């Protein structure tokens, strides 16, 4: 949660495109299917290597193994989703805040003021980025951290235009100067 200054309003918040989480979910589904198939084959061929005494139904053991794999996949999906959900950018009328979950229990926040922005570059690479309309925005700044990167975000062209519009508005706005007497 970011602390807003007085007169500061959140214009929009943005996170990575849904394709980012879909791609991971698909990979997870494939890995889950491979592991479930592996468990089935392992039990099926186990008599070659060791004696497996299953007194009851084999189907119940297979169903249990499948459910255990599914539960682990479900937890892994939500771990991916947590990373997706807690990586976001907040664009206000004064600055851009990059909130990044680097790993569990490790969150980093970077801020760039709109008047520090020197140039904004968009990169849309490859088939999927062109089809689904997402890409990377690279912001060159005059600050200490010279580059500010927003990867795999939705509608980069629109975001760039809005940033430029907000920057112009911020430059035109008269600055409040407080003088201590």
């Amino acid at each position, binding site marked *: 949660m970011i602390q807003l200054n007085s007169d500061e309003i959140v214009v929009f918040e943005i996170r990575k495109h849904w394709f980012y989480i879909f791609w991971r979910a698909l990979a997870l589904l494939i890995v889950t299917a491979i592991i479930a198939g592996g468990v089935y084959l392992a039990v099926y061929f186990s008599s070659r290597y060791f004696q497996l005494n299953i007194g*009851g*139904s084999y189907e119940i053991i297979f169903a*249990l193994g499948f459910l255990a794999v599914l539960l682990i996949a479900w937890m892994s999906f*939500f771990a991916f989703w947590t990373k997706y959900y807690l990586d976001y950018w907040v664009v206000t009328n004064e600055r851009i805040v990059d*909130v990044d979950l680097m790993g569990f229990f490790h969150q980093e926040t970077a801020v760039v003021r709109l008047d520090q922005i020197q140039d904004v570059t968009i990169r849309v690479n490859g088939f999927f980025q062109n089809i689904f309309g997402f890409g990377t925005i690279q912001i060159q700044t005059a600050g200490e951290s010279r580059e500010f990167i927003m990867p795999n975000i939705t509608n980069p062209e629109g975001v760039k235009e809005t940033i430029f519009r907000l920057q112009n508005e911020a430059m035109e706005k008269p600055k409040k100067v407080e003088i201590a007497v």
Partner: protein
Amino acid sequence: MSPYLPRINWNLTVTVTPLLLWLVFGTICVIYAVMSWIMVYHWDTFGYNVKHKLRVKLIYFVVSVIMLSAMALLIWLYGATLK
């Protein structure tokens, strides 16, 4: 079975008893509890939209509880078929 598989016998005997299944289930429950605590901590600490948080918790816990209950039911059923 395929005749091309190597015929190695490690002389290992694994007997699948309900107790063994309950122990495995207990281990899975512990892992689940730890993972869930970590995720809920992150949603509550770093998340900002109350509606999103509630919705995701509801989906996550309802589906997980269904899966865990189904597993417990299957183990009970396995024990019942042995008698």
